[in-house]
């Protein structure tokens, strides 16, 4: 932890530190775009369900149509994003946040 000469708290110093800025960037640069992407992907599905019924009703094989496949793909994308986030968090976020937590908690017990 940086030395404390000014009035700012340990949290403000941490917030300004390059390591924390890097943690924040790694978290937000993954979570925010992916959130927008899955919301757009989901809304596309809902809007097509309302406004493109002929397309959704197109049979692909047997009685399986586009609507069903699109729906199943929403499940697949949800599972993939959950898996991808847990991988990203374990590799890129956890090591850095563990280190910063140790820094702060070590610092406050001085």
């Amino acid at each position, binding site marked *: 932890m940086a030395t404390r000469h000014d009035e700012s708290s340990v*949290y403000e110093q941490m917030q300004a530190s390059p390591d924390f800025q890097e943690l924040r960037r790694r978290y937000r640069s993954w979570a925010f775009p992916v*959130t927008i992407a899955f919301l757009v992907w989901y809304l596309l599905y809902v809007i097509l369900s309302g406004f493109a019924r002929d397309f959704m009703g197109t049979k692909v094989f047997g009685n399986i*149509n586009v609507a069903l496949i699109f729906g199943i793909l929403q499940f697949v994308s*949800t599972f993939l994003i959950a898996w991808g986030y847990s991988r990203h968090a374990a590799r890129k976020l956890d090591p850095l946040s563990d280190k910063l*937590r140790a820094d702060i908690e070590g610092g406050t017990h001085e």
Partner: protein
Amino acid sequence: MSEQALGIVLFLLFVAATLGITFWASRHTKSAADFYAGGRSFSPVQNGLAIGGDYMSAASFLGIAGIIALYGYDGFLYSIGFLVAWLVALLLVAELMRNSGKYTMADVLAFRMSPRPVRTAAGVSTIVVSIFYLLAQMVGAGALVGLLFGITSDEGKAGTIVVVGVLMIIYVVVGGMKGTTWVQIVKAVLLMGGAALVTIMVLAHFGFNLSEVLGTAAAQSDKGGAFLEPGLRYGTEAAGLVGKLDLISLGLALVLGTAGLPHILIRFYTVPTAKDARKSVIWGIGIIGVFYLLTLVLGFGAAALVGSKAISAQNAAGNTAAPQLAEKVGQIIFGDVGGTILLAIIAAVAFATILAVVAGLTLASSSSFAHDLYAHVFKRGTATDQQEVRVARIAAFAIGAVSIVLGIFAQSLNVAFLVALAFAVAASGNLPAIIYSLFWKRFNTTGAVSAIYGGLGSALFLVIFSPVVSSKKTSLFPTADFHWFPLDNPGLVSIPIGFLAGYIGTVLSKEYNAAKYAEIEVRSLTGAGAEKAVTH
């Protein structure tokens, strides 16, 4: 033995087992952290199952299977919204909330704000959302259990509501979060097991050919290919553009509501660390996702094997489709005795499902009453842990009693819309406040209060003047007509109002606390200073 008697025996076994667990849990519930957060000592798998238990309500099990059985594809739209919603919780809310909060949603919202107005708003919103949801489940329980166990008189249904209410009060008052979580876990395992069993039997009957199930369902429905496409239930062509906007409104409320439901949010506090909260949500997503795939087969299986006429003859909303399917497929594969046993199992599972969900809702609302309104608003933070827990127990008792009375009173009313309304309120009021609190530096007290009251108020206001309350045969008051808002679900309008109110409220006030924002940002991302698990 009749299926009613067998069903009641199985249900009593569930009650005996869960009450045993509850009294065991009460011996390990000493502190406030035990009562509110189960000592924060559940494992990710346990909490993942409990998330599934809290979330897979009778509305999603029986309701979705019923919509699919009667209207085909459209029930699937519901499942998808309910599932995708968990990504909002996983990516934006669960870990940050676990790191920066203590017992309730308001802990995070009030973190850097003036505590009393924000806690009051969050407490009001928590209690309103939970009671709506609770009421829908209680009324559903009366009707459903009556049907499954052959109780048809109004007194009998009222008796069922009383039994459900008394049991949920015992789970919460005696077992706190620890007992309630175990009830959720047991219920989730039973529900998954029951749904998987019936699904496998249905698929086996059709030679494990899903296309065959769908084809038979479509042929039986006398709607043909349209039964496998969207548009028979939501956003029908007859309802025109308004109907389609309603579909989008419902879709938005479903996907954004989950991460604002108080009884779901407090689940993240029951594990030791934020990492465990993340893992438990991932387990929850897996369990809930598989479950909704099972209900897809159950719904179409019921349409194919039972037929929509036989289903709507039992219950106009299709809520008995899954139990009827269990009986039918049991008969086909194992003969009459098999049908009886399978129906009894699914009926008991359905009852267990209702009980577990109402217990979770009662806990969320009584926790918020005690921790937010009593301890921080009335007592201004001077209440002791023991006082808080005592008030929480009294509140659970009172909320339970009120919901029993309201449930009996509302028995003959159509209150199914309350579930979708709870999601709309959560998405319009709670979610904007949570997202702004965690991510927007400038956010302040006026903004938080405006977001919650703006979202909550506009959702309620619009629903009162919507077709679900008056003007239609299926409305709450079918004979009156004071509606002018065209959509059944207010989300499309009220969610933007909630976000906008939070923004405008914030910029109109000069208040802003940089030091507290630094604290919540650093704490939420690093877990520094997060509440630790209780060790006994």
